[in-house]
């Protein structure tokens, strides 16, 4: 996929819940950023507005930019949105007779408590399931049965299928159908036949087969995934098709690549058939971007944080690899699809600070004032003190220079409301109370990061922390220090995290075969499993224009100890095809990974080891221009010093004077000694005492202990 004609820009756009971000760059030019509000349900308007904002920075019209664009990468929250607003298709489910309630029963209480906070879980009387996307009345069981080996025990009753399809379409007026049979990931013949029959009987109906969308064990999660895909399928495909048409109409004739939750891109035509793949693709792109930034800076172990208005999100990169989520959910629905693990808590700039009515104990979030009315200090009618107001009260934000001076912050009102609702009830001074709230927020973040690193047997002290998002720079100096991370990087692209991530992504197809084999097994047997996947992958990538030297094929295998439930995806070192040595190496690598993840002594080897899933990740390496580095200047930041004021200095336990710098005037090579505050046009970076902040050749700010 090479650059065509005089087109030379790469454009990436990410549609988030609130904002749509654009990033563009070309060889020899700096990275440009653009931002616009998202515009549901017609998200394309926001996309064009963000592109226009970025185009403006190089003073060309949107159409001209698009005409000169070689690659257009895109991520969108459209599928998440369809689920949250329940605006998908009227969907039916065809499943194995006798197991019609699998979806609505949600494995018992699982669907009732999953996705709730600890407070919610402790209050079962107040809990309920989400109403299912497919009600029981739109589910039909048909006679058929496959067993745990994939053997057909009972042939598919085709007449029953025809009857089920007709009644779902004619009587229940469904527009989409999900098909999910027991053990179909071992033997998909019945599902495929049902797919054919549906296309024959009701060609207008959107169909998803579980064996195609999620060929993995576990009928509840598989059915749920299939239903989500059928439910949102038409919305996703219409969205992608119309975006493609819109871009064509504006002069773009290159490919449209769409981000997936596993952190890779798919060509538009394929993405259109995999609605479920687009779920949570924004946060996934953020982690991919972090990995790319890490590779530029030669860091392989990264804690990638993103803190915006409502949530704090964190993903972990270890040795350059990224873990997939174990039990992903969207809204209250489970699905199984490879998805980069990103965990979050409701702590962002807009998070409301409140005192527990019963105990008077202060807390931050999860309720948020959002963008409207927003924090008190924005003066947009916000009446609840937020974390952003606290940042103002501890001196980190400057009322006059916020967002490049576009909004003047109302410090007086923030102080008044905070006094009334927090400081006075706590019997503390405004400063002490604000400092205390700041610490609670920092501690909650520390605890979250601790949890997700410890959960995998990782020690945060081995990691570099990336601080993305509008609010992260205000807190990272404190929680980064408590975690003891090696250093903190506040990226230049901190405010357009996901869009930046898209720029670094490749086209990625994921294939898998579920089959249980003892480990070790003969290499030939394993290679035979891979053969059809490899053929499919090569054919696919070739059709997308990738030459052999632009294709990477990564093999990995899920292994487990045969009496334990935890499976670990283990990369096949050196790729395939495998020989007997490679099989032995795979088992050894699994053992090492298992021990590292689950702790020493956690493995029970005596009952043997088995391979349960064979995965192929096929990447088409997208050619892209290199990001330019700038020459380094001297360390002295004097030219960027714009003032001095009292701010919270954690080591002092209170407010103390600190230098204030303007990021726009800092040049690569400058080193700022803490305590100091750096204001950028979009965010603020706080360097604590005992730390220094250095601007690197990519204009990232690197915070390190002295």
């Amino acid at each position, binding site marked *: 996929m090479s650059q065509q004609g005089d087109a030379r820009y790469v454009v990436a756009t990410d549609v988030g819940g609130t904002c749509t971000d654009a990033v563009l760059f070309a060889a020899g030019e700096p990275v440009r950023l653009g931002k616009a509000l998202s515009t549901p349900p017609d998200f394309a308007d926001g996309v064009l507005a963000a592109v226009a904002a970025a185009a403006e920075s190089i003073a060309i019209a949107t159409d001209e930019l698009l005409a000169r664009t070689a690659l257009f990468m895109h991520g969108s929250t459209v599928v998440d949105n369809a689920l949250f607003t329940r605006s998908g298709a009227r969907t039916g489910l065809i499943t194995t007779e006798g197991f019609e309630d699998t979806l609505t029963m949600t494995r*018992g209480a699982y669907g009732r408590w999953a996705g709730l906070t600890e407070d919610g879980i402790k209050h079962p009387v107040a809990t309920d399931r989400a109403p299912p996307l497919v009600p029981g009345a739109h589910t039909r069981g048909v006679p058929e049965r496959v067993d745990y080996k994939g053997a057909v025990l009972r042939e598919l009753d085709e007449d029953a299928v025809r009857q089920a399809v007709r009644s779902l379409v004619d009587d229940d007026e469904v527009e989409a159908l999900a098909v999910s049979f027991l053990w179909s990931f071992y033997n998909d013949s019945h599902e495929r036949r049902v797919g054919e029959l549906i296309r024959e009987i009701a060609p207008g109906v959107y169909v998803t087969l579980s064996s195609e969308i999620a060929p993995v064990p576990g009928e509840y999660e598989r059915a749920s995934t299939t239903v989500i895909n059928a439910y949102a399928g038409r919305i996703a495909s219409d969205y992608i098709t119309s975006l493609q048409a819109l871009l064509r109409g504006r002069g773009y004739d290159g490919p449209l690549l769409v981000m997936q939750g596993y952190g890779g891109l798919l060509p538009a035509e394929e993405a259109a058939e995999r609605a479920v793949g687009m779920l949570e693709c924004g946060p996934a792109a953020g982690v991919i971007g972090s990995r790319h930034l890490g590779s530029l800076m030669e860091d392989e172990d990264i804690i990638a944080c993103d803190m915006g208005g409502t949530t704090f999100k964190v993903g972990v990169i270890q040795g350059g690899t990224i873990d997939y989520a174990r039990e992903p959910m969207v809204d209250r629905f489970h699905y199984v699809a490879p998805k980069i693990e990103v965990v979050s808590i409701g702590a962002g700039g807009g998070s409301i600070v409140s005192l527990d009515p019963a105990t008077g104990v202060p807390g931050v979030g999860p309720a948020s004032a959002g963008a409207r009315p927003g924090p008190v200090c924005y003066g947009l009618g916000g009446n609840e003190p937020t974390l952003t107001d606290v940042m103002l009260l501890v001196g980190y934000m400057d009322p006059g220079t916020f967002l490049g001076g576009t909004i003047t912050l109302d410090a007086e009102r923030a102080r008044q409301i905070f006094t009334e609702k927090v400081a006075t009830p706590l019997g503390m001074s405004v400063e002490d109370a604000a400092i205390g709230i700041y610490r609670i927020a920092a501690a909650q973040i520390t605890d979250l990061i601790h949890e997700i690193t410890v959960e995998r047997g990782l020690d945060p002290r081995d990691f570099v922390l990336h601080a993305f998002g509008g609010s992260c720079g205000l807190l990272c100096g404190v929680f980064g220090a408590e975690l003891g991370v090696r250093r903190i990087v506040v990226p230049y692209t901190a405010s357009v995290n996901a869009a930046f991530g898209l720029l670094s992504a490749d086209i990625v197809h994921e294939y898998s075969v579920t089959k249980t084999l003892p480990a070790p097994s003969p290499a030939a047997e394993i290679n035979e499993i891979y053969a059809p996947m490899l053929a499919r992958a090569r054919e696919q990538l070739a059709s997308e224009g990738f030459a052999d030297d632009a294709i990477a094929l990564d093999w990995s295998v899920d292994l487990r100890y045969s009496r334990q*439930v935890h499976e670990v995806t283990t990369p096949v070192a050196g790729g395939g095809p495998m020989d007997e040595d490679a099989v032995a190496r795979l088992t050894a690598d699994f053992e090492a990974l298992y021990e590292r993840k689950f702790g020493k002594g956690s493995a029970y080897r005596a009952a043997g080891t088995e391979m349960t899933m064979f995965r192929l990740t096929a990447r088409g390496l997208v050619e892209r221009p290199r990001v330019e580095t700038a020459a380094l200047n001297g360390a002295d930041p004097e030219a960027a010093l714009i003032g001095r004021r009292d701010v919270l200095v954690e080591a002092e336990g209170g407010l103390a004077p600190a230098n204030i710098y303007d990021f726009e005037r800092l040049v690569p090579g400058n080193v700022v000694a803490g305590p100091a505050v750096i204001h950028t046009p979009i965010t603020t970076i706080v360097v604590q005492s005992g730390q220094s902040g250095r601007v690197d050749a990519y204009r990232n700010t690197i915070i390190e202990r002295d």
Partner: protein
Amino acid sequence: MDAITFSIIRHRLFRVIDEAVITLKHVSGSAITNEGHDLMVSLYRADGSLLMGGVGFLHHLTSAAEACKAVIRRFEGDIGEGDVFLTNCPYTAALHTSDIYLVAPIHHDGRLVAWSACFVHVYDIGAMVPGGFSPDSRDIFTEGFSSPGIKLVEGGTMRRDVMDTLLNMVRAPEMVALDLSSMIAANNVARERMGALIDKYGAEPVDEACAALVDQSETLFRKRLRELPDGRWEARQYFDIEDETCRVLLAMTKEGDELTFDFTGSSPQSHYGINCTYWASWGGFFAPLFPLLCYDITWNDGVLRPIKMIAPEGSVVNCTRPAPVSLATVGAIQSVNNAACTCIAKMLSASEKYAKEATAVWHGSHFAIFMFGLNQRRQEAIGILTETFGGAGGARTWADGIDVGGEIPNPIGRMANVETTEATFPVRYLFRRARPDTGGPGRWRGGNSIEFALVQHDSPEGGINYVVSGKGTEFSMSEGLGGGYAGAPCAYRWVHNNEAGEAGRNVNPFPTELDEMTGEAETISWGVFPLKGEDALYVRSDGGGGFGDPLEREPARVQADIESGMVSEGVAASVYGVVMANGAVDEDATRARREALRATRLATPMAAE
């Protein structure tokens, strides 16, 4: 203690438990621990009192406190840094021998500052029947090994002699070793994380925060109790085991800010292992009490302080050694849960403010089927069918109970996929679904239960065995509330397809209803049975209790239940008085029917007669 530090320390204590639970699941790797969440990790103060309870099987929060206290008494002067103690004696603290507690002191600068404790239901305990549930045991001596307290790890080093002795007494010792390792690892994590917390904030402030946390819970709980009316509420639970009928009677009295649970009048202890010990009853009513009354209060010793219990010695709720107790967790403890849920719910429904927190009983029988035998890979497979965690929600005063919606004492249980069970045991499911008409009728309907059937499949021995520990077949154990009916009882059927085949009848290999099965369906409820050849096991669990008068249920809701298949038209007419015509509610006929049913009611005799 300033509010900020207190808030941070409290949050950190939650996290200590979280991380310990994650570790326990990682190391254990077993299905009952990972799928069923049949586990618990909690923190205790230096004197063994509950500091912070985690979300696990809630009966254990208080029992593990007793385990800590027992170790403190028994090992005084011999409790060192890095020690781990094991207790599983039901007459000391545990619920039954299969639930092993490992408790570990947490030291800081050489001083004992706290305890951590955890439990899992271990793979085997060396009882008569593999897995521990032993219907034929007649005393504690045949229920596996039982220790009132033994030091398993000394100063961080495993005592090999002790470990080897324990493992010498159980089946599948490697799996039990894994269970024990997982608990040791969880305790280690709790100790390390507590240590880090104390390093950061200092021993004194942390201790002060812990004391404040306990006091805060007491203050909040007493305040809540004062908001509720004074009174005395009764509940009665029956269960039948073979020839015996047991009663658990509870009178709960609330006066001011104190509650008394009085079990006087409950049946004498049983010959069967459904009895429970004193501390098991104590934990048994706290399991619903924590989530029903303290959903927004930290679960710790402060909640225990306003509570008293009277449990007659030698009764089914306070049995005398050596009475058998291996089925206590699905026996008397469950009845204590249910009776406490009913009494608490009645108290809540007497309050305008708290009526919305009241609920009929969830998953009253806690049916359990334990399987054991060789699986299709010739491995010894022992384990519970996780449908027991499927449960059924009791109706609330404002909403229906949740169909197959779990239970109160284990807030985050779940059941395994059919595909998971079919891969683990040599069985094939014929069907698994929510069973219509099992939820107790009411203005708000109780949640429907689950029904399923199994046959053996690819078993190297032609089949496998199972234990049915079945109270709740004669009696409905999920009581209704405020006029709601109790949920339907459980049913277990051994379907004799083998005999049908021998008699020359065609055995239907793919029935999707009990009625479609070929063989004679024999009712079973207690004991060890084979699942061999073509025979099938059919199980229906009990439905959740209903709330309020069924004649008050909005007809539109009854119609929706009929459409989703959750209520039959027959029950709609006979119990709800809702008459359907052409798929819609016949308003006139419904009004007439409901009037007629009310008239029948008014023709019944006065209760005094």
